[in-house]
C-alpha cells in the first residue's frame, strides 16, 4: 500500500501585505538624522534617503529601513558618541551611467563607503577588498546606498567597540 499523502493544507495562504503597511512604518526623517554625521549637507542627505526608502521595490525600502534603524539603535545603546563619524578612507558609491554619457566629477552619490570595517574581511589594497567594495556598491542605487549606509554605521560601531575596549584595558 503506497504511503498516504500528507493532508492538504486548506488554510488561507499567506498573502503579501499591502504596500501601505510598509510605507506606514518608514520614517525618512529617522534615517536622515542617522546619516547626518556622514552627510552634513541636508539636500545631499535627502537625495540619499530618498534613494534608500523612496525608490525601488517596496520590500527593499522596508528591509533597508529596518536594518539601518536597528544599527542606529545599537549605536544608541552604546551611549552618546564622542568621536562623530569615523574619518577613515572611503570609496565613492558611483551613480551608474552609460559610460559614454558620464562626465564631470559629480557622478558619485554623496555617501561614500568606508573601508575600515571591510579590512577585517580582506587585507587593505587587496583584490579581495576591491571585490567586496564592488559587490556592495554595484546594483540598483537603493541597494548600493543602503549597503554603504550600513557599512558606515558598522564602522561607527566598530570604532565604539574599540574605544570601549581601550577604556577597560589596563594601562
Amino acid at each position: 500500500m503506497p504511503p498516504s499523502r500528507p493532508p492538504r493544507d486548506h488554510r488561507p495562504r499567506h498573502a503579501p501585505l499591502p504596500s501601505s503597511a510598509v510605507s506606514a512604518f518608514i520614517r525618512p526623517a529617522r534615517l536622515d538624522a542617522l546619516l547626518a554625521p556622514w552627510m552634513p549637507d541636508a539636500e545631499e542627505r535627502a537625495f540619499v534617503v530618498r534613494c534608500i526608502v523612496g525608490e525601488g521595490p517596496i520590500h527593499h525600502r522596508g528591509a533597508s529601513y529596518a536594518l539601518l534603524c536597528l544599527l542606529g539603535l545599537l549605536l544608541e545603546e552604546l551611549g552618546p558618541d564622542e568621536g562623530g563619524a569615523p574619518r577613515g578612507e572611503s570609496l565613492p558609491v558611483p551613480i551608474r551611467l552609460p559610460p559614454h554619457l558620464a562626465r564631470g566629477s559629480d557622478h558619485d552619490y554623496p555617501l561614500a563607503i568606508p573601508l575600515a570595517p571591510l579590512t577585517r574581511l580582506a587585507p587593505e589594497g587587496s583584490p579581495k577588498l576591491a571585490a567586496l567594495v564592488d559587490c556592495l556598491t554595484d546594483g540598483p542605487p537603493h541597494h548600493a546606498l543602503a549597503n554603504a549606509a550600513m557599512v558606515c554605521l558598522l564602522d561607527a560601531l566598530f570604532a565604539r567597540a574599540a574605544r570601549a575596549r581601550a577604556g577597560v584595558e589596563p594601562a
Partner: protein
Amino acid sequence: MALPPALGQAFRMVAAELGMRSAARLFLRELMGEGGAPLVREARDKLGREFPVLDFVAEQWLSGRAEAPLDPAGVLDALRGVTRLLVVGLEADALDVLVPRLSGVEAGLVTDAGGLDPDFRRVLANYDGLMEPVGLSELHRWAGRRSALLTFVYGTDGHAAHVSPSWLRVSGPDVRTQFRSLIGWDILGQPMTVYPRWMVETCAGDFSCLVGPAPPAPEAAAGAGQPRAPAPAREAT
C-alpha cells in the same frame, strides 16, 4: 468683435512653442483688450474643453480671482547647490523669469514636446544660449549629485498632479535615482476644472520638492469678484 474662426488652431500652434499657460495668458490678454470679458467668455466656451489650461486661466480672470503669480524664488531655493538643471516641459513665462536668474547653473531643455511639435530652435533662441537642447538619449549626461530635474505642474490637490507627458518619459525609476532633486513647479495653484487633456496625471509624491505659487498680492485679492484685465506682465516671447 467676433471670435476669430481659426483661433483654436492658432492657439495650439502657439501653445506648442510657449506652453499652455503662457499661450493662454497671451491670447486672453489680447481678447480681453479687443472685446473685454464677453469675448474671453466666448473663447472659454468655444475652446475650453479642448484646452483646459486656457479654460482655467479664463475662469480665473472672469471670476476676478487673483492669478497665481509666477515667482521663481521657491524654485531657486530648491536649486541651492545644484549645478545642472534639466527642464522637462515648456512654459515660456516661467522660464523667462527663472532662466536669467540661474547663476552658475547649466540649464537644458528636454526636446520632447509631449504631443505637441514645436520648433525647439526657435524656442531656445529666446534664451540666448542660456539653455541648450537635450534629447531623451542624452538625459544621463545631465545626471549627478548636483543635478536637478524640473517640470511644470498644472495644479495639484496634494495627491494627484498634472504634468506634461514628457515628465513620465523622463522620470523613470532609473533617472529618479540619478538626479538629486525632482522639482515640480505648480504654475496654476489649483487643479483644472475640465478634463486635463494634453496633460497626464502623476502622483504629487513623485517630486522631491513641489513648489507652489506665491500667495496673491493684496491688491490683486482685493479686486476679486470683478472681471478684470490681468496685471501687466512679461510678454511671452
